[in-house]
């Protein structure tokens, strides 16, 4: 893991807290075309991802690492397929812990 360039775990709600910073989010892909990917964040919000688009077919759930572009939008740098089933509740809890009381434990 590249610790010099950390990416904060975020859900849709938390994106605006990190505008301009590197974030990571798992989204459920709703629509994907040559302009970008629209998906649902782990807290059920619409998130639009543009920037570097994936060169491979996306699974239902994907992790996207990139720069928070403000409300509900990410400029992607890296994509990871997370498969077709994923426990979004757990991930959402993790996002909250990583931005809340246990922030200090996360880079």
């Amino acid at each position: 893991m590249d610790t010099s360039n950390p990416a904060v775990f975020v859900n849709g709600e938390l994106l605006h807290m990190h505008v301009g910073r590197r974030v990571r989010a798992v989204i459920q892909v709703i629509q994907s075309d040559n302009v970008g990917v629209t998906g649902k964040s782990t807290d059920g919000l619409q998130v639009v991802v543009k920037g570097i688009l994936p060169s491979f077919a996306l699974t239902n759930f994907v992790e996207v690492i990139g720069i928070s572009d403000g409300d509900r939008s990410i400029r992607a740098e890296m994509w990871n397929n997370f498969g077709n089933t994923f426990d979004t509740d757990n991930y959402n809890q993790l996002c909250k812990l990583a931005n809340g009381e246990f922030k200090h434990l996360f880079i």
Partner: protein
Amino acid sequence: MPVNLTPNAIAAINGGDVNSKPLVQVMDIKLIGSTQERYRFLISDSVSTQHAMLATQLNDRVKSGRVKKGSVVQLIDYICSTVQNRKIIVVLNMETIILDCEPIGNPKMFTESESTTQKATPNSNIEHPVRVNNYNTPIRGSFNPQNPGTFNTQNPGSFSNQNPGSFTTSNSGTFRASNPSTFWAPNSGNNVQGFRPTVQPPYQPPPNYRNHGPILKNEAPARIIPIAALNPYQGRWAIKARVTAKGDLRRYNNARGDGKVFSFDLLDSDGGEIRVTCFNAVVDRFYDIIEVGRVYLISKGSLKPAQKNFNHLKNEWEIFLEATSTVDLCPEEDASIPRQQFSFRPISEIENAENNSILDVIGIVISVNPSVPILRKNGMETQRRILNLKDTSGKSVELTLWGDFCNKEGQKLQEMVDVGFFPVLAVKAGKVNDFNGKTIGTISSTQLFINPDFPEARDLREWFDQGGKNAATVSITREIMAGGSKNEIRKTVSQIKSEGLGRAEKPDWVTVRAFITFIKSDNFCYTACPLMIGDRQCNKKVTQAGNRWQCDRCNQEFDECDYRYLLQAQIQDQTGLTWVTAFQESGEEILGCPAKELYMLKYELQDDIRFGEIIRSRVFNQYLFRLKIKEELYGDEQRVKITVIKAEQLNYSSESRYLLDLISKSQRK
């Protein structure tokens, strides 16, 4: 049957919601697009309309008449995109709910300014209850047809002033729509909608309002605003709301002297709720006027941050009435203001609810335990009564009644269950407790409704009577732990030694999450007697006698013997490593194939490569091991024997849930 479109669906979608799967009406359909055929809908949520493009794969629905002008549809997958600086909804998947329907409401074109004042808050998100932002109007109601959520009841009936908890619905009236702003007039015909235009434009002072000089005096009567728009920076305001609960008059004695205080809760026609508190002389003015169920016009008072420890209403402010405040009873009943507002959670969702969160739940009472006296920490005695609720989510939960609830509602419920009747119980403002899985307990502001008359209750009743009674349910109480076993005791590998497990008279049963790090591949199984003794297999080790097998215990010979695991393995977690023994079933769980198959591979086929592959494929897998630990005498030596009773491949999802639960518990300490 009247249909209610999902309130504020359009504003919510513009605010980023992709989750609520709302019901909307198609007001118009237009074929557009020069190169490609595309359909554009005008959709309505009964308050607003907006254009929505249909994904081309849905074109056929229009062509074949499966959706037409007037149809009520449920949007399944949809997004909101900006095209030429205009927001447009793109419908990717939908279902037609009602093909032909008269126009509902009197919707206006949705405008961007509204969208900035609407904060989309999907109600499926337990952890973020609808937060009422001071400068925004909250979304009014968040009804989710897939996930029965909030609604309001109209006539819950009597309320005892003495005890805010004893609110029963002996005389409940008709249920009304989920959306307070699109209520049907209660006595109107089915198709006549009592449509009320959207409330006043959302109140929107700039955040730096206070720096803009003094507020001009205006002696005209204050405008009635929604409770949700109340904020401390308003000079004059009035609200019209129903009292949903009235607290006891309490006397206090603190450093500043003696005094008295009482509070009551308000609900308005937009679903906004707020607590009102009065002190001392103000108590004398208003205590007797306030009656639960009545509607009042309230003006002048100061807004202070709500004390979240005691006040669980969805509002960050609380009203403090002052000498100049006015509280006027509205003599005429205002049917647009609901009697109560619920936001029921399915029991399955409570499994993931945060500890100490306050929520509403409705279920069938399937068992009631007797009331027992409990000594409180402060030495006072109180009553406790535990009952079990189940709902259509396939889960059940323990509800703990405290104090007066035990003898009033609790007694009534017990009498019903004792004669074989299982009542519906709605719990308003129960508190989630995560001791032993998840349980719900009453608090002083909890209200219980036995067999209330609203759709949620009727649906439950119907479900229960038509088979739900016999449907298997999993309790989220005590059984939430990963592995699913009751009273599971989690230990680390090093704790087995450091806590001296197995040294007591009885064996210790513990659960350990660990990796298999080594499997002894010699003598991993033994030849066992396949004969039955009563209803059990003999399983004694047999010896070969010529071409046949012989059991000393059974004193018999047979052609084929059984092969059973007797597996020695090492398991390891972050704290240490230990040897364990696994017999037949758990051995098979660890190796993923029967002992006989592995025996044949190694000793008959002598396929060491394949055999090695199987062993290696199981090593470094993580399992939840249920272990039996007991010290045994081997010759002169006492040795702790650890037996694997069950080896379950780790389920990362449920294990994460277990760990999150552990984190929230450690936070409490």
